[in-house]
Every structure is written in C-alpha cells, then in structure tokens.
C-alpha cells in the first residue's frame, strides 16, 4: 500500500542550523497494516509524516501510495487519499464554521460526486448525522453549531471522523490523543481503533505511550536520528515487553531512548 524508498531530507543545508531530519528512510506497509511509531525527541517522526503528507518535498527518494508515485504531488492533492490528525485539536477543524459545514468540506475529498456550486443536501445531512452518532457524543444534535464551541476532545473526535469520512488509503495519526485528558484520550483512541478496524484503513500512528506502541496495531517502528532503527511485528512483537523494546532500541540506536515524555509515561505505568 505505502512504499517509502530511501527518503532523505536536510533542513537549512549549508548553514550552522543544518539538520539531517530524514536519512535514507525506507518502509513498506501492506494494505490494512497498522504500525505505531515511537522515538526520541527530534527523531524525525513528524518529519516523516510531513514528507508523506507533502508538507515539503524530500531531497531524494520516492513515495508510492497504492502503486502511484506521489513524490511530487502537492499536499492538497495527496490529501484526497491520505487522512491526517495532529496533536493540536485546533488544527483539524475550522472554528467559525458549523459542524455540518466542516463535515461538508471533509466530504469534498469524495471526488467528482457533486459540482462546486452545489449546496449541502438532505442526503449529505443524513449521512453526517449517522456518522456523528457513531461517535456517541451527541454531536448529531448540534450540527448547526460552530465547531469553536466544542471541547478539545469533541473537536478531535470530529477531526477523526472528518479524516475518515471518505475512507482514506492511509491515515497518519501524530500523537492525536496527547493533548487530551486521560479519559477523553482513551475514548478517542477507542474510536480510532474501531474506525480503523471497521474500514481496514492502513494506518501509521506516532505515540509516546510504550504500551500503546506494543498493543495497538500489528507493527511497531522505532525512529532515531532520522532513521527507522527498529521494525518488529508478528510473533516477536506479541512476546515483547516495554523493557525488551527499550533494550532493543538502545542496542540498535547506540544510545538509550531520550524522550522525556516516553520515560515519564513508562515510569507512571510501571
């Protein structure tokens, strides 16, 4: 489904601030794969997502999605088949527009079903209400309200629905529950799991929760210094503990994991 071939990106080349953010990253995901990504601060996790989503063009390498070479596609063209969520709940929705209007925009990704001059139809409204009711937040009764009135958790749940309203080929989740309180985070994560499973969406998820990294999905990737240093799945992953994961990381990366939030969360959990 997704094929990354030798992706490299250097920021500010030739200056004192030169930073090699990605170096020769290659990755293959099969259809329906759900891989979690953990890594140190500045390991290149978000940079990798930016490269896949087209926030910038890579210096070298190729990106193939479902057999199509999208390396030089602009971001808005890629977004037709790639859904994305950020940590910040404010990034995914337009606050002064209503829930219904936000959903109508997300629904534009379904190509060619309507003219640009058409308005939100009754059928659209029914579809939106039905999908909103699946979130279990009662938002289907508030479709005419501006999104700015919603809480962070509600906005993030809505963004999740918008990213998957038209089933994407690939879903990129960048610590999308990290800014929410624990109970809301659990709820949004549960929704994520059920929506991804229901539609068999190929998914990459950055997390700082080591337990989630091992339990969610079917593969775990670890990044460090712009490279993928560990990629485990199947039997091996099923038997792994958080400690095993940290040991393997230290061995492959040549140093211990230095993500403060990961270390805090492992201490809390143990």
């Amino acid at each position, binding site marked *: 489904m997704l094929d990354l071939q030798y992706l490299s990106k250097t920021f500010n080349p030739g200056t004192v601030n030169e930073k090699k953010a990605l170096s020769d990253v290659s990755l293959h995901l099969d259809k329906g794969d759900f891989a979690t990504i953990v890594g140190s601060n500045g390991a290149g996790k978000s940079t990798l997502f930016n490269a896949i989503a087209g926030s910038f063009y890579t210096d070298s390498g190729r990106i193939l999605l479902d057999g199509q070479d999208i390396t030089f596609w*602009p*971001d*808005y*063209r890629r*977004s*037709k088949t790639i*859904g*994305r969520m950020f940590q910040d709940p*404010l*990034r*995914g*929705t*337009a*606050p*002064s*527009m209503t829930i219904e*209007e*936000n959903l*109508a*925009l*997300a629904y*534009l*990704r379904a*190509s060619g079903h*309507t*003219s*640009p*001059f*058409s*308005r*939100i139809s009754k059928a659209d409204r029914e579809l939106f209400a039905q999908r909103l009711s699946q979130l279990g937040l009662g938002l289907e009764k508030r479709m005419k309200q501006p999104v700015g009135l919603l809480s962070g958790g509600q906005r993030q749940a809505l963004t999740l629905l*918008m*990213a998957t309203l038209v089933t994407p080929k690939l879903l990129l989740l960048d610590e999308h529950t990290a800014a929410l309180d624990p109970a809301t985070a659990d709820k949004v994560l549960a929704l994520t799991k059920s929506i991804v499973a229901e539609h068999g969406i190929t998914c990459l998820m950055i997390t700082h929760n080591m337990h989630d990294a091992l339990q969610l999905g079917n593969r775990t990737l670890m990044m460090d210094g712009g490279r993928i240093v560990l990629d485990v799945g199947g039997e091996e992953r099923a038997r792994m503990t958080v400690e095993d994961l940290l040991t393997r990381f230290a061995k492959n990366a040549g140093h211990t994991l230095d993500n403060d939030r990961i270390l805090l969360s492992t201490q809390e959990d143990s």
Partner: protein
Amino acid sequence: MFTVATVLSALELGFIYALVAMALFLSFRVLNIADMTTDGAFTLGCAVSATAAVAGHPFLGLPLAMLAGACAGFVTAFLQTRLAVPSILAGIITNTGLYTVNLAVMGFSSNVPMLKTKTIFTAAEALLGENAPYKLITAVGITVVVCAVLILFLNTRLGLSIRATGDNPDMVRASSINTAFTITIGLCIANAMTALSGAVLAQYQKSADINLGTGMVVIGLASLIIGETLFGRGGMWVKAVAAVAGSVIYRFIIALALRANVPSECLKLISAVIVALAIAAPALKSGMAFRSRRHNAGKEGRKDHA
C-alpha cells in the same frame, strides 16, 4: 433635521457603497486578507463604466467593470499565492499599477464628464418616471441582488472552501482543496464587487475621476465595522444585512458631518479615526479591564493590611 433629498441621497450612496463593504466582508473577514487592491479596483470600475457609458453602453459597462475588477483581484492573488509576495504588499503593488491602467482606460485624462450621457439611472428614470425614487430603486436593486448571490455562493461547496481558507488553511488543504485557488477566486469576486460599486457610482454622479477610489478601503472597512458592531452576530445573511446597513449609516454620519459644517476635506480623517477606533476597540476594552482590575487589586491589598 434632514431634508428628504439628503435622506434619499444618503440612502442611495449607502446602497452603492455597500458593495465595497460586502467586498471587504469577503476579503477582510472571510479570507482574512487586508486587500489593498480595493482603492484601485474601485476607480477601475468607475473608469470602465464611464468610458463604456460615454461610448453608448451604460448597461454593458457594469459587467465589463466587474470583469476588470476581477482581473485586478487576480493579479493581487497571483502575486500573493504563486510568487509569495506578502498579501498587503501584493495589493499595494497592484493598486499602484492600476493608477496608470485607470488613466489609460479614461483615455489618459484624469476625469470623464458624462453630463449628457445615457446611464442606467436615466434608463430607470425613463422606465419608472421622474417622480419615482428611481435612483434609490436602481441602487437597492443592484446591491440586494449581488449580496444575495454572494451569500448563496458562500454556502456552496466552493463557497465553504473559501470561508474555511480564512479560518483554517491547513484544514482546507487536508480536504483536497488548493488554498491558492480559493484565495484567487475570493479576491476576484471581492474586487469584481468593488469595481461594480465604482461603476454604479460613476454613472450615478455622472462623472469618473482618477481620485474617486482614494481611501475606499478605509471607508469600506468603516461601513463594515459599523454594521458588525450594531447587528453583526448571526449567520451569513445577518452579516450581509449588517454590512449594507453599516454602509447606509456611514453615509448618514457623513451627511450629518456635512450639515454640521465639517469641511468635506476632513471626511477622510474622520473615516480613518472611526476605523482605527473600531478595530482597536477589543484591545482598548481589555486594556481598560486590566487597568481597573489592577487598580482594584491595589485597594484589596491595602484592605488586607489594615
């Protein structure tokens, strides 16, 4: 306090200039861009419409003016979205260039008199009779139709994308829409409306002048903000009515100022002060709230020690 003629002319001008307020509603409020093309686009509309009317095509003058205005908006949008010129500078550049273009449209003369020329207003007079308020009916008709079409458009899928562009461009790109495209469409429509306003005004006052558009962006903003302050909370329809009402109220303020013998040279300064105060209002309000909070906190402290 006002004669019927003053009221009528304030209403007429209010509705004609309301198109500029609506244009700025689209560019300044919806797209979140301070579009400096406005002044030049207004004069461009005047020039095109006057030249067309003099050539015997007063009606054709209006769509031609809109087309010209849309082109001006396109240039600004192109500079901004494709060539990475900062948005305010892009407008100023286009505006500067338009000065020459406007002179050229008027045959390199700084004004076009059209005393005996047939205009849409003389046509309306012939149709409605000279005793009917034909000028007001024409101005209201044009403004209401254009505003209604704009609001209907803003609720279409393309319109929603334009609205979201000013609100959250990231989200628009994530919905597979190119923000360069939505900004371009938005600025073209806004400047077409500004030019239409100039086009109607030129035929209304039977002359076009190279300086008619000077300060138009501030006048439009003043109208828009007056309307928003008085009626602004609500859906898109309420906002459109507010912009039109603001423009009419602005004209009454000007009429009042003229009646109070304020010299007409001072009107631009008055407009500038109104806009500066209106835009600064939220900051002034929170500043005052902070000061009074600090002042009271000092008193509370003394009470505790006593």
